[in-house]
């Protein structure tokens, strides 16, 4: 199966092929404004042309902040941020992931939160008059995650490799 087809077969990746390279996403993108490392139009084009390695092993897809400006403005209704999520999942399966994401994953699994709660956070909340954070019910979450093979997906070698 073509790389682009693998993307469009995934949840979120369906709209990849609609892109006609107008670049509205790029001029809408706050990240493209500060670094030329990330150009959503280019990421989409690479994916359309099937340049898998560059997409999967490169840094670009991890630079998206999911602000959805591009989705909002795209005249072809390409859900760029969602397509990038689909590609991130593929990269994850191929064990190409920035270290921080593994930390997010384990924090989520162990504490039920992506961002670990530190004393600093607790103090800040108290300063703002917010109530202390409640336990997350992580046991139930862990059961669900186990049923979904969450741990396995995040650590196994990707099928694509």
């Amino acid at each position: 199966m073509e790389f682009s087809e693998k993307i469009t077969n995934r949840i979120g990746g369906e709209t990849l092929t609609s892109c006609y390279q107008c670049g509205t996403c790029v001029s809408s993108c706050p990240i493209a404004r500060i670094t030329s490392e990330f150009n959503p139009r280019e990421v989409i084009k690479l994916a359309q042309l099937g340049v898998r390695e560059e997409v999967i092993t490169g840094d670009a897809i991890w630079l998206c902040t999911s602000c959805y400006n591009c989705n909002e403005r795209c005249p072809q209704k390409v859900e760029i941020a969602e397509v990038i999520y689909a590609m991130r999942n593929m990269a994850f399966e191929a064990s190409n992931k920035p270290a921080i994401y593994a930390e997010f994953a384990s924090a989520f699994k162990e504490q039920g939160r992506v961002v670990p709660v530190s004393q600093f956070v607790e103090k800040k909340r108290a300063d703002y008059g917010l109530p202390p954070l409640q336990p997350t019910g992580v046991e139930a979450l862990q059961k669900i995650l186990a049923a979904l093979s969450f741990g396995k997906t995040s650590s196994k070698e990707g099928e694509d490799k």
Partner: protein
Amino acid sequence: MEEARVGVFLSDGGGYLSTILDLNAIKSYVEKLSNVVQVEMRSDFSWGEDLQIIIDAVKSGKINRVVATHNLLSLGDVKIVQAIEKAGLNPYLVTVLNLKDYCAWPHQDKPDEATEKAKAILLAAVERSKLLEPIKRLEFPTLKSVLIIGAGIAGIQAAMSLSELGYEVHLIEREPFIGGLAARAGRFFPTDDCALCIQSPCSDVKTITDTSRKCVYRSGFSEIPNLNILTNSRVLSVQGVPGKYTVGIEKRPRYIDEDKCIRCNLCTEICPVEVPDEYNVNLKTRKAVYINIPYSYPPVYVIDEDACKFHECEKCVDVCPTNAIFLDQKPEKISLNVGSIIVATGFEIYDSAAIKEYHYDDYPDVITNLELARMIDAFGPTEGAIIKPSNKQPAKKIVFIQCVGSRDQRHKKYCSSICCMISLKHAIQIKEAFRNMDITICYIDIRTTGREHEEYYERARALGIKFVKGRPTEVTHDPESNKLTVDVEDALLRRLLQLQADLVVLAPAMVAARGSEELASMLGLELDDDGFFKEYNAKLRPTETKMKGIFICGGATFPKDAPTSSIQAHSAALKASKFLSEGKIVKDQVTAVIDEEYCGDCEFCPVTCPFGAITLEPITEGHFVAKVSDLLCEGCGICVGTCPLHAIELRHYRSDQMRAEMQALLSLNEKSKPLIFVFACKECGGTADDAVAMAMKQYGSNMRVMKVPCTGIVRVEQILEAFKMGAQRVVISGCKSDGCHYETGVQIVEKRVELARQILKEMGIEPGRLLLFKSVFIEGLGILKVAKGAIKWLEKIGPLQLAEDA
């Protein structure tokens, strides 16, 4: 009715057919059929001595029904039918078959089976013949006059053509001045000449002095005696039938006599009321009595009803030197009798405010290309100066943004096709006048597809106009500097640009004219998903509509440039002329007919008829029956298949005729098994057997084909009947879903197939025994797969077992 005496005439192709078919056996089989009084076998009954035999038999009165065969895939049958008609027999009593291409050739490897199928085909023709009835030829009178709705480029051109051809032409325009969108555009590509010029036939009339061939104001086209121009007018109602419509028109008052006004401008000078001049981009104001542009046509002022103070003021009345102003003019109701109608309502621009990120409504210096055109026009509000509307200062930097709402799934998904050229034209005009102007065009793709269009792109580059490949995300405005910034990525540089601009010019999508929906419902026309009028066939009949007598041209079907609108206008004029030239419509009565005894108030058929040919007529209090217009009915039979009470028949495809044919086709099958029965339409879908014959391919003689006008005529009961008569599988061979020659036939039959499958399932019969095959001619060979697949599948599931009472 007189008893049928059938003559059967077999063409053996100089003996060629005998190499496959046992023609002698076939002949003696046919001779024994009831009502067959004469059987002849010759080389070719489509011409010469052989044809004369049929003619003599008809003339002598020996036969009153003809079944003849010929061996040509082309229309050899036409010659035979025409000759017999000339001999005095109604052409609908003649059946012409082709045994070579539909029987001998495709089954040549199995001559026995082919012979058996030939007998079945001839039996079917004879049985059907016995039930045929003569069909009358009808005449409907038509008026030699045409109504043209919309006086833009297309409407004016069509009016010129038709008035030149001698028709009485009524050209109506809802605005007070003609010219439509074109008049506002200033100049045209690719001719670079004035937008509002016309090719008037009056320029050929040398008695009119000072006429110009083209300039609208002195073309003399208002003097054409058979051309009636009605401005400020709109269509209120359309009644009648093709060839004879009565159109109700409302003409709003102009308050100024068109004959008396000498355009002295005194009224405008004295008028105390000033309102924004929308026509001229609100860049100036105008008075309540005004003229849009100095060269507007007709060259007569008009009073703005919403602004004028009428009798409270009357200053214009007092000052008018020719007493041309009448403040008490009332709207006029006009009734026109016309034979044909041409829709030339054009298109308009999409509301740019809908694309919020470009802030058309928020920033006065963001304008549309139409507004820019008014600035470029030397007669316009700025007399050709390119200014910032916010402060009236000259603009030095202009950024054009293309595809504003076009090619946009959130707005208009199509390419509006002319905006690239409009922007190139404007940019060139500005750059040629102001060499220091900094112009950038932001584009997704530059589309210059017409003749001499690419030259505009070349000229623009040569003049130093800059191009950025990218669609801007947003226009922002800095209140301090009063400058605009356009955020765009140049994809070729892979770099973000922030383009500074004094003026941003949007190229909005072109959309259907407002009021199209209302007009379409008055005329019985359909609109497409984008709101444009639907033509009959984009390739072959682009200026016709499904309503006979109603034609269409220009931007009403899709945004077009002036040359294309002009071509279409002349095409529509030709079609209207062809329709009206005889003074009558001659048409065979191959139409649907209602059995009023069974028909009862259900309203299915009027809704289903694609041509609006069926109406409900009151018979007694609260009781309606359907009535078919012989003029409008196209003879497809979709209503026949739809009627739940079997109260409709097609005169030349009655159910009893079809049943007799089916029964015969399915009766002879000692050798040809398992029987597959095909209902094939006479249009694209039914050409599958032609395709197979032309490609000289073979299929089993177990496939028996009955032609019908449209698959939409096939009723669920007929499908079940075919099974009962012995078919092991039934195939419906029709056109592609969007290619039905009667608009909806195949879509309707698709639903019926679903229903029939459910019924089959209920009856314990495999629903797969019923198949819908849709094709155009070039896909026709697909029927071979259907035929082969059917045999395999039927072998697997075994013969159809019907209970006795089924």
